[in-house]
C-alpha cells in the first residue's frame, strides 16, 4: 500500500502551548482514516496541520515533518497554495459562500486560474454528481447556496472541495451539525469517494468512526495513543485507555 501522508515526530504549538506531541503516523492511499479522541485532544489541530490551515493562526509553530508523497508540507520552499489545492478540506460547520450554487463550486477553479467556461461548467456538474447533490440542485444552480438545507450545504462544500481535484480530503466532523438522514448520505458518499481520494476524517461519533473508517487513530492530550485497522481498534485495542474511551468510560 502506498503511504500518501506521513507524519514524522510532528509537534505543534500555539504560542507556548504544545498542542501536538511527536505524532508519527502513516496514512495510506485510498483509505479512510478516522481520528477520534476527547474534546481538545488535538484532532482538529492535526487535521488543519495537514493542509497548513493553522498558518493563519498567529503564534502557531510546528516541528518535525509532515510528508505528502514524500514531500515535506512544511518545507520553506513549498507553495502553501499548491498544498491546499492538493489537500482539500471540508469544515465542521458547512460554510457555503454567499454566492450561487454554481459559483460556490466554480470558486476553487477560478482562484486556481482556470478560465475555460466549458471546462468549468463540466467540472461543476461532475463535482456535484460526485458529491451526490446534482439531482437535487441541477434546476437551480443559479440560486443562492444559502437556500439549501444544512445537509445539502455540507455536500455542496464537499463538491466545492472536489472540484479542484485534490488528492486528499480532510473532513472536520462534517456531519456534526446535520440531521441523521443527511449524515447517512454523507457517510455513503465517503465510501464512494475513497475510491478516488485519501480521506482523513475527524469525528466525535464513535459509531461513525467504526462504520466508515478503514483505520482509526486515537488521540489524547495531543498524543497519538493508538493507530491501526479500525476493526482491531474497536475490538482488541492494545491499550487499556483506548478501550476505556471507546467503550464510553470517559470522554
Amino acid at each position, binding site marked *: 500500500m502506498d503511504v500518501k501522508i506521513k507524519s514524522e515526530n510532528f509537534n505543534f504549538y500555539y504560542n507556548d502551548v504544545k498542542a501536538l506531541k511527536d505524532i508519527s503516523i502513516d496514512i495510506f492511499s485510498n483509505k479512510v482514516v478516522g481520528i477520534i479522541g476527547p474534546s481538545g485532544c488535538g484532532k482538529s489541530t492535526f487535521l488543519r496541520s495537514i*493542509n497548513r*490551515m493553522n498558518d*493563519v493562526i*498567529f503564534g502557531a509553530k510546528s516541528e518535525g515533518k509532515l510528508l505528502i508523497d514524500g514531500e515535506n508540507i512544511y518545507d520553506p520552499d513549498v507553495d502553501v*497554495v*499548491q498544498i*491546499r*489545492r492538493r489537500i*482539500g*478540506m471540508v*469544515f465542521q*460547520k458547512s*460554510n457555503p*459562500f*454567499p454566492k450561487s450554487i454554481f459559483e460556490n463550486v466554480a*470558486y*476553487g477553479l*477560478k*482562484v*486556481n486560474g482556470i478560465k475555460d467556461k466549458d471546462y468549468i461548467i463540466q467540472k461543476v456538474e461532475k463535482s456535484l454528481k460526485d458529491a451526490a447533490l446534482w439531482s437535487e440542485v441541477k434546476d437551480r444552480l443559479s440560486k*443562492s447556496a444559502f437556500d439549501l438545507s444544512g445537509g445539502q450545504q455540507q455536500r455542496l*462544500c464537499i463538491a*466545492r*472541495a472536489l472540484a*479542484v481535484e485534490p488528492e486528499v480530503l480532510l473532513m472536520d466532523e462534517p456531519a456534526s451539525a446535520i440531521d441523521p438522514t443527511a449524515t447517512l448520505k454523507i457517510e455513503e458518499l465517503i465510501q464512494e469517494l475513497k475510491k478516488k481520494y485519501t480521506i482523513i476524517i475527524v469525528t466525535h461519533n464513535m459509531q461513525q468512526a467504526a462504520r466508515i473508517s478503514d483505520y482509526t487513530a486515537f488521540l489524547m492530550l495531543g498524543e497519538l495513543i493508538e493507530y491501526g485497522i479500525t476493526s482491531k481498534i474497536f475490538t482488541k485495542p492494545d491499550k487499556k485507555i483506548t478501550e476505556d474511551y471507546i467503550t464510553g468510560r470517559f470522554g
Partner: protein
Amino acid sequence: MNKKHLKEFMGFMLLRICIGIIGLILIIILYDIISKGAGKISWEFLTAMPRKGMTEGGILPAIVGTFMVTVITAILAVPLGMGCAIYLNEYVKDNKITRLIRMSIRNLSGVPSIVYGLFGVVLFVQLMHIGTCILAAGLTLGLMTLPWTITASEEALKNVPNSYRDGALALGASKWQAIRTNVLPYAVPGMLTGTILGLARAAGETAPILFTGAAFYLPFLPKSLFTQFMALPYHLYIMSTQHHAIAKVRPIAYGTALVLIVLVFTMNLSAIILRYQLRKRRME
C-alpha cells in the same frame, strides 16, 4: 396599577421623553431653516454668482467649491482608508504595536476639526508649499476623514465571517485572492456607507478649510485646484457673523444653510440606498 407596572410605565415614559426632546430639537432646527430658507431657493440662487458684496445673487461658487473639495477629500480618504483597514484587519498580527496604532486612529477621530485646520496649514500650505487652495483644503479634510473611514471599513471587514476566508484558502486561493474575491465583496457595502458618512461630515466642516483655502468673496468659479475657493459652510459662517450687513443677508444665509443640509442629507441617503442595493445584489 401595582408597583412593578408603575415602575415600568415610568421607565418607558422617561425614554419616550428623551426621544421626544431629540426629535423636537431636530424638527425646530429643520423648521427654522426650511421656513426661512425655502423662499430664497430659486434657479438663480443655485446657479448665479454672488453680487454687490454678497448682498444679492446666488451661491454657485460655494456649491462648486464644496463639491470640488469633497472630491479631493474622497480621493485621499477612500483608497487610503480602505487600504489601511484591509491591512490592519487582514494582515497584521494583533500585538502591542498594532493595538497602539488602532487606539491612535480611534483617538484621531476625536481630535477637534480646528486642530486639523492648523495642521493642514503647517503641512500642506507651508511645508509642502501648496498654498491656500482647494487642494490644500481637500487634503486637510481628507486627513480629518481618514480615521472615520479606517474605523468604519475595519468594522465592515470584521463582520465578514472567518469561514469565508478559511473556505477560500482551503481551496487553494492565495491570501489576497481570498480577500479580494471572498471578503471584500461582502465588506464593501459597509465600507462605503461609513466612508460616505465621513465625507458628508467633511463637506459640512468649516474649521479645517478656514485657514487652508476657503475665501470670503470670489464671484467666479475656481479654474484650477491651486486657487482659493468659496465653500457652503464657510459662506454660511461669513453671512451669519462677518458680513457688513448681516440683517440684510440673513435670507441668503438661511438659503445657504438649506442647500448645505440638503447636500449632506442627500449624501447620507445615497449611502443608505447604496448599501441596500449592494446587499440585495449579494443575496441574489
